[in-house]
């Protein structure tokens, strides 16, 4: 003896079983996701580039310090290219005589030592 030959009753039981299928608990989902995060090949791939530049900024004292440093460098460059009259006057006051360079023939002095 079996259930109805056309299988409708068995199909009905399958439908009931599908409707009561077990669902993952929150605890199981947490275990699975913990595995996923642990096994993920490169979980922080995107932020890594930002972190490298962040390290450079931090070493220089943060973005505020870098801003000041850039402004000072630009001002120094401009003063060097086009010194104001006041700066030129101070320089002349500190070093009034013109500078000159003399080249000494060291090879001649060496030959004198060897021959002497």
């Amino acid at each position, binding site marked *: *003896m079996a259930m109805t030959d056309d299988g409708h009753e068995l199909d009905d039981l399958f439908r009931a079983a599908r409707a*009561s299928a077990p669902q993952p608990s929150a605890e199981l989902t947490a275990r699975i996701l913990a595995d996923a995060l642990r096994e993920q090949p490169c979980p922080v791939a995107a932020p890594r580039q930002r972190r490298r530049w962040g390290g450079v900024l931090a070493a220089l004292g943060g973005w505020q310090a870098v801003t000041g440093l850039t402004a000072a460098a630009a001002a120094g460059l401009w003063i060097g290219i086009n010194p104001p009259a006041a700066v030129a006057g101070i320089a002349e006051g500190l070093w009034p005589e013109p500078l000159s360079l003399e080249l000494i023939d060291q090879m001649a002095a060496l030959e004198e030592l060897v021959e002497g």
Partner: protein
Amino acid sequence: MPFDALTEASDEALLVLYANGDPVAARVLTARLAPRALGFASRMLADRAEAEDVTQEALLRLWRIAPDWRQGEARISTWLYRVVANLCTDRLRRRVPLALDAVAEPEDDAPGALAGMIEADRAAALQAALARLPDRQREAVVLRHLEGLSNPEIAEVMGIGIEAVESLTARGKRALAVALARRRGELGYGDDR
């Protein structure tokens, strides 16, 4: 990427995102695949705790294979069912014979029978009958009629031909029908014939 933005993505696309470091992809894949793995393992093992362990292990293998997954070679869901089937087979082989006998059929005079059968009772009766099927018949019947896989997909999961799948399914259903026949009245289908 937001959870909602990924719910329409394919399993394969989500696995690529996971392998590229997207933290949300794993959540979407888990929400999609864990219920299927757990449902299949529960039917095969008739043990919730063991089924949960199998589900976690199967998904762990998915996370580990993600960087080497070859697009287009196999569907992720089919691959996962095969892993779950293998893990369940390993556990069933380790069980002592008494464990299967311990799956008792509900008594005919149980309170549920007197009060009239409800959906949960029918599901429980089917589960008890499934647990008494040979493992391969149970696997084929569960994949076909509870997980909704096609015969070619089942053939791929079980590593057999489509005709063998049809044979296993047919024999399994006949055995279920016989096993459940004497409970027709109790299940709300009228008197035994």
